[in-house]
């Protein structure tokens, strides 16, 4: 019988990887696979953002016109603040990798310091993002929405944006307030904008040096098209419908509603990841201080949480490109 059985020498060796298949511990390998799946989630978001960019390629807002704010400074400074945020995140990635390196050398005090700096970097990034969201939601100039759902901006003859509050003229209006006792009992009145469309129109007619900037990009210059005074007047009178101030999930003063929706979802999902990262870093930080890894004789946990932290940085690199540059 023995002669017919082929002996391959693998009996009882169904798993040849031992405790560390691919020379990576279980925890580290699973962190890599988690990162892989999370990367696919983010690319799903970013690719669908690309879908909408291609779909609305003519009317998509230009990032440099939208993200122009820098804290404590007035005026237009596109890119500066996001560049700062990117730098902060890369810096905190560096302190993280230094912490991992110190961990390999079993240097408790250095690991502690670097973990602390990483946490601080993460917190600065989160506060910057909170600022970014606040200015985005509040808006600055206000805009008029057309019947077709496009956005109309106002500029002076030099091409600088003009805020609605600088030219709108108050008009006598008569309106019935919606109250629960006289209207639909389960809904409240919608929030009113500071000006009605008619007030903006009246102000526009009274100021000859204000022009309409449409939402359509001029392919030759890469800027949005500004109309002549006569065209501006017809554009506003025939197409204008209501006033939009700031941004929410239904309207925003920058462009198609999807623009704000993607902004909230993608940067929000990323910000959520950063918050979780900061939380994990804090836990690991205290474990380092308590000497847990000293006793365990391995700082591998620092390395695992480091992988996650770098991944968050990696995602930001892509969000930065596709939201603020392209």
């Amino acid at each position, binding site marked *: 019988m023995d002669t017919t059985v082929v002996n391959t020498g693998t009996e009882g060796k169904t798993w040849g990887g031992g405790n560390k298949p*691919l*020379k*990576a511990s279980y925890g580290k*390998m699973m962190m*890599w*696979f988690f*990162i*892989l799946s999370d*990367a*696919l989630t983010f*690319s*799903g978001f970013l*690719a*669908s953002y*690309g*879908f*909408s*960019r*291609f*779909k*609305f*390629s*003519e009317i998509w807002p230009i990032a*440099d016109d939208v993200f122009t704010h820098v804290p404590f400074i007035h005026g237009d400074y*596109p*890119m*500066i603040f996001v*560049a700062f945020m*990117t*730098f902060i995140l*890369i*810096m905190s*990635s*560096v302190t*993280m*990798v*230094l912490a*991992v*390196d110190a961990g*390999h050398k079993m240097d408790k005090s250095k690991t502690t310091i670097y973990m602390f700096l990483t946490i601080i970097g993460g917190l600065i990034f989160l506060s910057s993002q909170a600022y970014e969201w606040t200015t985005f939601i509040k808006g600055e100039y206000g805009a008029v929405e*057309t*019947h*077709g*759902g*496009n956005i109309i901006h106002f500029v002076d003859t030099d091409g600088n944006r003009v805020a609605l509050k600088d030219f709108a003229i108050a008009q006598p209006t008569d309106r019935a307030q919606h109250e629960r006792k006289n209207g639909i009992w389960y809904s409240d009145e919608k929030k009113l904008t500071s000006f009605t469309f008619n007030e903006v129109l009246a102000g526009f007619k009274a100021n000859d040096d204000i022009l309409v900037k449409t939402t*359509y990009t001029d392919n030759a210059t*890469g800027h949005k098209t500004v109309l002549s005074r006569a065209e501006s007047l017809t554009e506003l009178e025939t*197409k204008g419908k209501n006033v939009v101030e700031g941004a929410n999930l239904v309207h925003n003063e920058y462009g198609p509603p999807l623009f704000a929706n993607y902004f909230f979802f993608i940067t929000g999902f990323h910000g959520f990841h950063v918050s979780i990262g900061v939380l994990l870093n804090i836990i690991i930080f205290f474990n380092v201080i308590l000497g847990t890894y000293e006793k365990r004789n391995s700082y591998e946990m620092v390395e695992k949480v*480091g*992988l996650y932290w*770098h*991944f968050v*940085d*990696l995602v930001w*690199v*892509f969000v*930065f*490109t596709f939201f603020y*540059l*392209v």
Partner: protein
Amino acid sequence: MADTHKLEIFRGLIKFKSNTQKIWGVLIFLSIVTAIEVVLGIYKPEVLNGHFIGMKMLNWIFILLTIVKAYYITWDFMHMRDETASLRRMVVWTSVFLICYLIFILLQEGGYVGNVFTNSYLKHDF
């Protein structure tokens, strides 16, 4: 992996003496790339406004620089350089393949829907 780090970047053009030194070196490189991106993003040189395979030259440059940055973050900060080839391929090739597939499908479809918006009898500017 513990004590053996591969210390050269740019295919051996620059070799660092220690892992710490390599980290700072990579940081400088990443900062330079980011600075280039920011400067290009602010000034948007006219020369790069030309179109190339459906996108502006400038956008291709941004995407290329981003992938370069992603490479160095993964390879040096996440120590992918020091992992075994099989682990590296499992993670990198899977994501590269699936992401390319997703991007191709969605952008193709987005471009088509965009064409319907601009070229067919669909009024949206009123």
